[in-house]
């Protein structure tokens, strides 16, 4: 798509009718994400003698990927509704469903300063943060999660996401959502996944609250500005799995073994229990530890479902992204983690 700059200029000119001209530059495709396609660009809009320059990020539905079938509109509607919220989510003004504009639907959001640390051991095995950064970030990420969960989703017009009913419905809906994705991959069900799904179905926890969940709240989706003890969480990214459900789901995903980068710390920040306590203090909500364990098992099942979707897309030739193929040899780690969480193996 060599003419993306011209297309973006035409798109923005239509969205900024008061501007005399809109110039787009520095369009860059980003490869970090495994799901939606991401481009960054600079837009300069002139209004007479005045010019406004802003950095933007565009997210476009991929042809195939880990969360297919794609629909970016719910994610856009949530981000748009939260644009003026103090939560560090990017201001997100525009969505375009017309595939004639950029071949597939996309939305545009403000570019936020910061880097995206990833859950990896790093050169010294300590993970992506030094001690001062960990001490600064841990309370911030749990406060931000508590703030997200405190949002009145009904008042913000987010009921379209579909609220689960009382009791075990939130838990049940998630198990069945991911079981259906595993089945849709068409790849034979692994015994360890079958056993885990059976356990999840036998032990669905009842939910006390239904809140707005990010769905992918974890290290790797946080924008951070490093400054020692003044390190700041500047943005929350990748809202593709946003939905309504039990708050323990986001907490469990956040503290999952999946994002510990071979360190002993959840999210490479602090012990899992410390993060949960920070969340409880910030939210004023107690997290039932048995329910948390349940959602931790669900987290690994969910990750397996995502990987199987990517593997299938690669196997079918719908994506040529080799990073989908590596999930074929990443899955055994998830199987081992599931076996451990289910008590068949010692936990790492």
């Amino acid at each position: 798509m060599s003419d993306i700059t011209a297309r973006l200029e035409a798109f923005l000119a239509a969205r900024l009718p008061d501007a005399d001209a809109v110039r787009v530059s520095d369009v860059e495709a980003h490869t970090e994400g495994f799901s939606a396609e991401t481009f960054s660009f600079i837009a300069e809009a002139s209004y007479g003698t005045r010019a406004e320059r802003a950095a933007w990020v565009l997210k476009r539905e991929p042809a195939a990927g880990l969360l297919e079938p794609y629909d970016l509109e719910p994610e856009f509607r949530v981000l748009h509704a939260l644009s003026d919220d103090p939560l560090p989510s990017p201001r997100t003004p525009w969505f375009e469903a017309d595939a004639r504009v950029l071949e597939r639907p996309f939305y545009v959001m403000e570019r936020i300063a910061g880097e995206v640390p990833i859950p990896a051991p790093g050169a010294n095995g300590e993970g992506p943060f030094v001690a001062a950064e960990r001490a600064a970030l841990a309370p911030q990420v749990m406060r931000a999660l508590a703030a997200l969960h405190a949002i009145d989703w009904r008042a913000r017009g987010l009921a379209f996401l579909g609220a689960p009913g009382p009791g075990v419905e939130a838990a049940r809906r998630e198990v069945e959502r991911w079981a259906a994705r595993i089945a849709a991959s068409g790849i034979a069900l692994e015994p360890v996944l079958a056993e885990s799904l059976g356990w999840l179905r036998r032990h669905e926890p009842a939910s006390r609250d239904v809140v707005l969940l990010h769905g992918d709240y974890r290290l790797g989706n946080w924008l951070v500005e490093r400054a020692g003890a003044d390190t700041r969480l500047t943005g929350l990214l990748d809202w593709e799995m946003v939905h309504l459900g039990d708050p323990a789901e986001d907490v469990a995903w956040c503290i999952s073994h999946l994002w510990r980068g071979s360190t002993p710390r959840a999210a490479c920040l602090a012990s899992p229990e410390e993060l949960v306590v920070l969340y409880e203090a910030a939210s004023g909500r107690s997290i039932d530890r048995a329910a948390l364990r349940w959602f931790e098992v669900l987290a690994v099942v969910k990750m397996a479902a995502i990987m199987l979707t990517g593997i299938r897309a690669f196997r079918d030739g719908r994506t040529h992204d080799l990073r989908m193929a590596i999930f074929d040899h990443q899955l055994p780690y998830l199987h081992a983690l599931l076996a451990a969480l289910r008590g068949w193996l010692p936990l790492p």
Partner: protein
Amino acid sequence: MRVSPQTLLEGVVRSLHDQVLPHLESRPARGQLWAAIDVLRNLGGRIEPAVAALEEEARSAANALGTLAGRLRDAGEATFAAEIERQLAAAPAEPGDARTQAMRAALVDAFARLDTLPAESADALRPILGGHLAAQAVRDVSRLQPSLLEEISRG
């Protein structure tokens, strides 16, 4: 194995050809890359399935299922036991992917049937299969090379 080595090799060839080669300007480097692509295109037919690993998994699964069938029979669950024994007998005898797939399917089926038993009985029997899950997970992980995911994520 969810993706065959041949499909993986085709993907590597496609990625190198379509996404790496166009960005490589050094002539010696392009020569090396063309040669790598040529090697990979001809490698698929020379790769043999890792039969020993598949057979080890199948044997472990068959042992676990056989033990479960015996315990079920002792507990008066003859129909369930007979179904497991039928599946074991029907599995392809030849070591390889088909036999291992049949064992995995039998395990999945056994877990589903265990869920229909009274909770106390099922809880007592699941560890028989859980032992196989644990051993298989360890075997699978031990065969992998350390992941380059950190470098892949950084691009």
